[in-house]
């Protein structure tokens, strides 16, 4: 497969998310889509990015994407491996993490994150896996980048349950809560890129991926989504980015019997 093959929406999302990581970043990586994007950044424009996984590896450089957050490849390629309590205490809460890279089952217009339940907490329609490390990452990481597929079910006016706080009800809510991190700075989906309004903190579409119309984004959003005055096209993936991602996914599929991000 080469860059000539059509780019999938997932590839577009992964590349767009990867570009938000910089060489000097220390990134606390969630499993799945964030892990694919973070490792793509490491393998392309940000070889110096430090990847931290909640199971304990610091400076992990896995050759294939881990299927789970505690795969042996993370420990083998890390600069060091510490206990889980230490990861959260010294490294995250200690203020050493510049970016938290997370996904979610549901987010709302202020980028609050739900990974707990759909429906009522006591009698849920769907019981989701729960918090993981996200409440602490959302509180303490320098900033948060969210990566998830966009549908009207996953992008809702108000999440059913705030597992991990984004910008709560907007404005200076985070500051009033005494949170040390800046919270969600970008949301990358398979359709577009959103960033919070500097004042209201409501998510605003700033970039549309190639071929995606504003109507398509509106249809996949559960609130009346706003667009920036001058919406740009997301820079298209380069051959280098796409080849690197596809090689990574191919190695991963060989190792696990299927792509890890699926």
């Amino acid at each position, binding site marked *: 497969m080469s860059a000539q093959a059509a780019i999938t929406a997932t590839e577009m999302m992964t590349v767009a998310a990867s570009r938000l990581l910089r060489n000097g970043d220390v990134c606390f990586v969630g499993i799945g889509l964030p892990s694919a994007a973070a490792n793509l950044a490491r393998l392309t424009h940000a070889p110096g990015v430090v990847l931290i996984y909640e199971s304990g590896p610091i400076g992990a450089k896995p050759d294939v994407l881990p299927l789970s957050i505690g795969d042996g490849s993370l420990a083998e390629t890390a600069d060091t491996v510490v206990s889980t309590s230490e990861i959260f205490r010294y490294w995250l*809460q200690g203020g050493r993490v510049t970016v938290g890279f997370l996904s979610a089952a549901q987010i709302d217009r202020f980028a609050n994150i739900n990974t707990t339940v759909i429906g009522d907490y006591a009698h849920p329609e769907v019981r989701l896996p729960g918090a993981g490390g996200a*409440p602490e990452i959302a509180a303490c990481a320098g900033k948060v980048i969210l990566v998830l597929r966009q549908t009207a079910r996953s992008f809702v006016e108000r999440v059913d349950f705030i597992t991990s706080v984004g910008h709560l009800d907007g404005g200076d809510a985070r500051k009033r809560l005494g949170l040390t991190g800046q919270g969600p700075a970008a949301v990358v989906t398979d359709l577009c890129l959103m960033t919070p309004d500097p004042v209201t903190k409501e998510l605003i579409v700033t970039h549309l991926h190639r071929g995606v119309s504003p109507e398509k984004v509106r249809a996949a959003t559960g609130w009346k989504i706003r667009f920036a005055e001058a919406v740009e096209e997301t820079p298209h993936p380069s051959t280098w980015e796409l080849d690197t991602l596809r090689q990574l996914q191919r190695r991963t599929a060989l190792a696990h019997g299927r792509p890890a991000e699926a």
Partner: protein
Amino acid sequence: MAELTSLRAAVGSLVRDGDVVAMEGFTHLIPFAAGHELIRQGRKNLALVRMTPDLIYDQMIGAGCARKLVFSWGGNPGVGSLHRLRDAVEHGWPGALELEEHGHGDLSNAYVAGASNLPFAVLRAYAGSDLPRHSDAIRFIECPFTGERLAAVPAVRPDVTVIHAQKADKKGNVLLWGILGVQKEAVLAARQSIVTVEEVVDELEAWPNACILPHWTVSAVCRVPGGAHPSYAHGYYGRDNMFYQAWEAISRDRESFQYWLKRHILDTEDFEEFKRVLQEGMAKEVG
């Protein structure tokens, strides 16, 4: 003082119905063989504590061992849902399951508090989250020095902690390496502990800073090679990702789960026989 004994004897003498039991191992070194033995011996009404319930607690919840689950992330890693956990929460099958939810930073440090003989752990999280509104086990306190509002969570103090490790020596000193999770903290937080190991050796030959549990901190050490399968044991065997994927179909409905449980755990003598039955089944499917 660690006693080198069989897993059956250790579970028989150390775990009681109704106990608070923590079985730790973060993706790595999950004590599956011990989980099976608790099911075989019919333990009931356990309050199960584990950061990531994983397949081990999905099996125990589906088998009816648990009344309560204390956890921070309850999915099948890289695959999807834990269907037995979801069935218990959503439909009360095979019995009602009380949930106490935390985040990883919170629960991992609740073990540290337990090991430190402190009543609670303190952390900077949960401001703005709905989790404290649905849990008595997450509260807020004011720092007596700065006035900052911080989250507090009760220490975890298990009656019994169970872990799997790579090696023990003949005295019962235990060595583990790779991804360490919270196993050391969980053992030191508990009143009693069981450690299953891949092998028992004459000398551990460990570095001075290696993660070691001295024999006098462990109640029982049991040699159970492969006892972490389908999770992995660094330096011994890899994670059986195919099994994690197969669990999706096995656990999705009650009948197929019960059939699997009877054939692989209830009708087998021990983990050795479990491994034989599992291999026969896999061979048939592949063939």
